[in-house]
């Protein structure tokens, strides 16, 4: 079983590596590239902790082979910081609104919320709940996750200042 030559862009950085075709994208990111933001939760496409952004789509990286991401532009939670390294708006709002308890689901939540707000900058609370339905929080902290995303949407629309 020949290894495949993989090329992709992860958080703006070009990446090249040889990988066995059976390597799942989540394992490639975490083990080959050392990008450990995306988490392995259920490993069965249910929980969304492994969510990354792939060419403008939110995907569960535990359910894609690395070859399916050949040539892709990938963004993980690490790529959502501001250029100066400070927390991005969504990350800041998750902190401000206590959108995490244990924090395990948070990278997937934030990465998914990023795409949701790109597609719908002014979502209703129902839109947020429907759009986030592929991400599970086993602390069940959904109220504050929704609040954080609604607040981030308002900041990104320029209607509200992010707190210092």
């Amino acid at each position, binding site marked *: *079983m*020949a290894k*495949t030559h993989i090329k992709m862009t992860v958080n703006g950085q070009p990446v090249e590596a040889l990988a*066995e*075709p*059976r390597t*799942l994208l989540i394992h490639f990111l975490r083990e080959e590239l050392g990008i450990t933001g995306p988490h392995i939760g259920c*490993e*069965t*496409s*249910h929980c*969304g902790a492994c*969510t990354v952004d792939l060419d403008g*789509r*939110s*995907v*569960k990286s*535990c*359910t*894609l*082979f690395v*070859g*399916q991401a*050949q040539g892709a532009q990938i963004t993980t939670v690490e790529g959502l910081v501001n250029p100066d390294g400070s927390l991005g708006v969504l990350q800041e709002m998750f902190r401000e609104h206590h959108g995490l308890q244990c924090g395990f689901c948070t990278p997937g939540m934030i990465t*998914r919320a990023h795409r*949701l707000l790109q597609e719908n900058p002014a979502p209703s609370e129902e839109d947020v709940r429907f*759009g*986030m*339905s*592929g991400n599970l929080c086993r602390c069940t902290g959904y109220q504050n996750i929704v609040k954080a995303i609604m607040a981030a949407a308002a900041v990104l629309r320029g209607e509200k200042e992010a707190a210092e």
Partner: protein
Amino acid sequence: MIPGAFDYHRPTTLAEATGLLAEHGDAARVLAGGHSLIPMMKLRMAAPEHLIDLAAIEALRGIALGTEIRIGAMVTQAELIAHEGLAAACPILREAALQIADPQVRYVGTVGGNVANGDPGNDMPGLMQCLGARYALTGPDGSREVAARDFYHSAYVTERAEDEILTAILIPHPAPGTGYAYEKQKRKIGDYATAAAAVMVGRSAASIAMTNLADRPIWSQAAGAALASGDVAGAVAAALSEIDPSDDNRGPAEFKRHVAGVILKRAIERARARAA
């Protein structure tokens, strides 16, 4: 949760893909979105030695609204949902697709994979039977079309031959004013249906199909005929007489039969309210 090893192929033409499938036979599987196949491979319930990814084949993409509706096999559920022209031409497709899995799965999962896999839990097969769709298949000896109503034999056993690839779904335009509803009862977001029903109802015609209530989707000619003549109770009774649910973690068969009756009635009411 590491799948068995395989060789990965990424053909760019359909001819190349059917050639690979012919060359490797039983040892090969085609990969669409992979959201059914990859979980099976992680469980080692599927262990193909060759995986033929269809993602780079342009001919399998795109939605065309001509004399009939053509949906390329590699169109994702998200692309189907986002297509305004399709939503206007045949709104039940969007209504059903929004009830499949969750956003991340819909970005990757394809319509072709959903109909071709033969999983009785999938929503699109019953819907395509309701709509009178046909599937285009291409193999080494050329192409053919099979009616969705003739495609499903039993769980995962379909009319598609091992060396054929499902390339597109062809749907006749519903008559103007046709009412529609896709109703699905599920335990939670992302789950397969406990019971689901697709209903189309027009002036003198109606069509009813049900999902996950037998080892294949159930399109009931008798139920459609009863509904077309305005007999709702007769339509529900006819459909329920053709389903064959089994006990599993979604409930005992009798419970599913009950749920099926409730959601079918709801779907019929909603479809009739929308009919012009």
